[in-house]
């Protein structure tokens, strides 16, 4: 046992030295951490602005001349007649074809206090129209309610009487569309950091050694292939973990500057949260490293390794995006690497809390897959095919 540890230390020391001295690759790997504040700030600010922005709406209004005050109310809400649309938007709103019809006897009806039938006509199945239609509907209802209450006040009626029931709606989905986007962005960034930071080391210590023709001599030494894989995995995971830690550190600097509360994200990156995130991400660092080693060891050249490993890099990007489209998420997803971590991270960002149990299960499941990958890799490194492919 003591000998095995000494051997492991010897190999880890050598891999670390090599990784440390390959400065250019190391800097490139850590760039994702340094870039974190810029990317996160820029992207979230854009998303927040978009979320809070209420663009002008242009609709066809029939009979607007008979209801000038309603029209000016609508204009205050950013709802304008189609004729007022700027040139570049005119055809868009023409096609969207939202039509508000005000009866010609509007003025007469309003004077006599009778109900006025106003018609809102549009294709309600069209998703792009949902937000504008909601705003038009709300604007008309608000106008009607305001006028109604004013009438009652004039007649000396207590407004309290109108409020028979006050319904408080509470949305249990903690985030809306845009907060979902920001969560996705933060989670994606952290997962990419895990995958990107260890990449150069993983490729260099496997495909690189093979290309520099030192791998065969290493295989001739009195060391098991399992020990070789373990040492290389240790160092690649370690570098990836350092990358993730740095990314978290830099994110922690910038996240307090972003007003996430404005879009309903209850998230602060304090020390405890950062540790939670790190604990979730560390198994992912090991997973990324083992997957990259697995792929890179069997590439014919450094170049080939780089391109195949780049495909592996798509995983943390594609998997979470795919997950956002899955409504009924099967349980297995919370066990698998990447999707498991994604769900945990998402929970942390949404502020809905992460159980120790589920985090442990996800971590164990991920590490088990790493173990299997490493065992298969060790076995393949011993195989005749691998030896013959060394040339």
């Amino acid at each position, binding site marked *: 046992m003591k*000998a095995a540890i*000494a*051997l492991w*230390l*010897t*190999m880890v*020391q*050598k891999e670390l*030295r*090599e990784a440390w*001295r*390959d400065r250019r690759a190391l800097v490139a790997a850590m760039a994702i951490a340094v870039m974190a504040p810029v990317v996160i700030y820029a992207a979230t600010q854009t998303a927040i602005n978009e979320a809070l922005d209420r663009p002008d709406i242009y609709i066809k209004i029939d009979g607007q001349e008979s209801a000038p005050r309603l029209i000016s109310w609508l204009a205050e809400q950013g709802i304008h007649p189609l004729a007022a649309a700027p040139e570049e938007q005119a055809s868009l709103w023409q096609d969207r074809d939202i039509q508000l019809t005000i009866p010609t006897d509007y003025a007469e009806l309003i004077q006599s206090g009778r109900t006025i039938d106003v018609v809102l006509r549009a294709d309600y199945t069209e998703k792009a129209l949902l937000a504008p239609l909601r705003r038009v509907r709300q604007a008309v209802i608000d106008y009607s309610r305001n006028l109604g209450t004013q009438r009652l006040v004039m007649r000396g009626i207590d407004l309290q009487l109108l409020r028979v029931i006050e319904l408080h709606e509470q949305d249990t989905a903690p985030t809306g569309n845009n907060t979902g986007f920001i969560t996705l962005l933060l989670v994606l960034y952290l997962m990419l950091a895990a995958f990107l930071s260890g990449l150069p080391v993983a490729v260099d210590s496997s495909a690189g050694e093979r290309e*520099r*023709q*030192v791998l*065969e*001599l*290493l*295989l*001739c*030494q*009195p*060391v*098991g292939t399992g020990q070789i894989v373990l040492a290389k995995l240790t160092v690649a995971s370690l570098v990836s973990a350092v990358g993730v830690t740095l990314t978290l550190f830099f994110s922690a600097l910038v996240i307090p500057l972003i007003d996430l509360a404005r879009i309903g994200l209850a998230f602060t990156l304090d020390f405890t949260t950062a540790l939670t995130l790190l604990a979730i991400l560390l198994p992912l660092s090991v997973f990324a490293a083992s997957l990259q080693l697995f792929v890179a060891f069997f590439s014919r050249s450094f170049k080939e390794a780089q391109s195949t490993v780049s495909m592996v890099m798509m995983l943390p990007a594609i998997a979470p995006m795919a997950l956002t489209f899955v409504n009924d998420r099967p349980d297995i997803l919370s066990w698998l690497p990447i999707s498991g971590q994604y769900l945990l991270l998402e929970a942390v960002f949404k502020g809905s809390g992460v159980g120790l149990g589920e985090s442990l299960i996800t971590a164990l499941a991920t590490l088990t897959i790493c173990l299997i990958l490493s065992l298969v890799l060790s076995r393949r490194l011993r195989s*005749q095919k691998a*030896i*013959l492919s060394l*040339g």
Partner: protein
Amino acid sequence: MLTVDKLSKSFGEIKALQDVSFSAADGTITGLLGPNGAGKTTCLRLLYGLLQPDQGHARVDDIIVEQQPRNARRQLGIFPDKFGLYNRLTAREQIEYFAGLHGLTGKNRAKAVDDIIAELQIEGISNRRSTGFSQGERMKVTLAQALVHRPRNLVLDEPTRGLDVMSTRIMRDRLRSLRDEGHCILFSSHVMQEVAALCDRVVVLANGRLAAEGTPQQLCELAGTNELEEAFVRIIGTDEGIAA
């Protein structure tokens, strides 16, 4: 002592080695000679335990390689065919690494590394990174890493390829003194003159078979010529005659 006993190895249809037996004794430089594709590399890979034989055994001292490959490798120093070095490590770190792979630690390792560096007279380059080393310097570092754990047996695969005259000389002198210290040295080459200049015994492989074995003198007599090169050509060209 390295022994190859009725060793056979095929890759699909290709019979890389067929029933090859020879041994390399302690205190002797044994040349493993053969043209390209004769089966030298396969033979060495079987000795290192990288490949499994179809039949027969390879032995390092008394250890059967395919049964205990790691124990066998502990008794082996290997000077590989393509000696790539770790460019980002200094010569000393590189030698230290191999000492560590052979289980040396702490003071023992430091002493072993110091000793071999002194012995091969590479103190001047020991703290330089191997990028930019001359072929001769690379050869010495590779030799140092093969010898740092003081193996009884040393296997060299085409060791003088790409070396200049002076480096080749240094290498030969080193191998002779190792032999005189009682080491077993197996020297694989396809260069006739190299083997003739250095080896006490020669094993000739051709087409995966043992074509001949003996001292250079014996090989010449066997082939009926005074020149070893001529003998080599005749032996590998007419293996029926030799086998008779």
